[in-house]
């Protein structure tokens, strides 16, 4: 009865046990956040053990939920401790500011992300944008990002309803959903890069 699945579950729950045990004794607020990131890994491992295509379809939402809540909590942490006004140095290495390397790397990531589209593409393209914004210490306009992500959300939900109620138009819905979710994830991720700089 000790198949591969049970063995994997044993490992994953042993990890969860260790992580939660450390969390019980932790008093520092930021260490708590890091440890929660650790136990998230264990829960993703439990999902991965299903080993079907469904597992992947469940991992992607699980991952994105984790990072979104992490960003919100880290921002609450900064405000409650009063660190919000402190400057962030960015990647203020002289070479980074001038050299074309960030541009080239970001371009590769963004192009590949657009080819992938969907969740994965959004994540990868977003990473490229974050890297670029960080290396150029950009202080940008937030509202544009928020509006863009709102529109892409609407596009994607519209595509979902086409899938459900007008299944004949599946091709249209597929492209709408893929592009909508790509834009949505990119804009959200580039928020991280824009927040790297100073408060407006």
């Amino acid at each position, binding site marked *: 009865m000790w198949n591969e699945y049970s063995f994997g579950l044993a490992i994953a729950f042993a990890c969860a046990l260790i992580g939660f045990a450390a969390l019980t004794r932790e008093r520092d*607020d930021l260490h708590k956040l890091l440890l929660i990131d650790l136990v998230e890994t264990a829960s993703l491992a439990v999902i991965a053990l299903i080993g079907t295509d469904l597992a992947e379809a469940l991992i992607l939402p699980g991952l994105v939920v984790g990072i979104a809540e992490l960003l919100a909590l880290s921002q609450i942490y900064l405000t409650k401790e009063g660190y919000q006004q402190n400057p962030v140095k960015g990647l203020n290495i002289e070479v980074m500011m001038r050299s074309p390397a960030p541009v080239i790397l970001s371009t590769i990531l963004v192009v590949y992300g657009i080819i992938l589209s969907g969740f994965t593409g959004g994540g990868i393209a977003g990473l490229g944008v974050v890297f670029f914004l960080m290396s150029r210490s950009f202080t940008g306009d937030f509202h544009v990002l928020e509006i863009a992500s709102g529109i892409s959300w609407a596009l994607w939900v519209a595509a979902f309803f086409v899938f459900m109620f007008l299944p004949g138009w599946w091709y249209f819905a597929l492209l709408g959903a893929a592009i909508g979710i790509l834009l949505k994830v990119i804009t959200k991720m580039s928020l991280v890069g824009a927040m790297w700089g100073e408060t407006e």
Partner: protein
Amino acid sequence: MNEIGGAPLFFLEFGDIVIYFSPFTITLFLLALVFSVFVLVSRPERQIDIAFGADAFYAKVISLSELKFRRFMSIACGLACMGAMVTGDLFDFTLFVSLVGICNVGIVAAVKSRHVQNAAYQYGLVALAGTVPMFAAAAMVAATTGTLSMLELAEGTIQVPLAARALLVLGVMGEGMAPFYAAKAEMFRAPGAPYVIMCSLSSLLIFLRVAEVILVL
């Protein structure tokens, strides 16, 4: 098939995720709907602090943007509750519950008081930790029974492992039920009456719903 809240009256199919309305879920759904509308139309309270020993009092000023933001979060919380009440898929249920958790954090996090923000942070950590047992439970159900649909699981032909049920309950408790609810009570010091009601109402609704889910499995 074991039915807890009466036979489902009608189904709304979204592919593999089937939303079902039984007398039990429809009651909870309407309750969430009524409160969302209530939040939408009501005007927020003005908290007044009375200075002791003198005849003076001063009203706390809440900025318009803060008000709008918190109303938006409350409505999102109401919508999430409505979804969690009627969904017939286990993983979808866990996602809706975590949405309720993050909305609850949002309702209070906008308040500019260090005490309230600290409570919101601690509660947010518990909500984030609660997703771990919840997702693990849903994944274990999928792996050991081969399905996530509550309607299929309610047939009772395949046994759901006890550990998965217990993990699900623990995870949902982390998203805002007793005894981890205490942090929320602390958050109620935040001004803005109709919005914080949404916090406690969502816990009540989710408590009732998770009881049904566990009994059906």
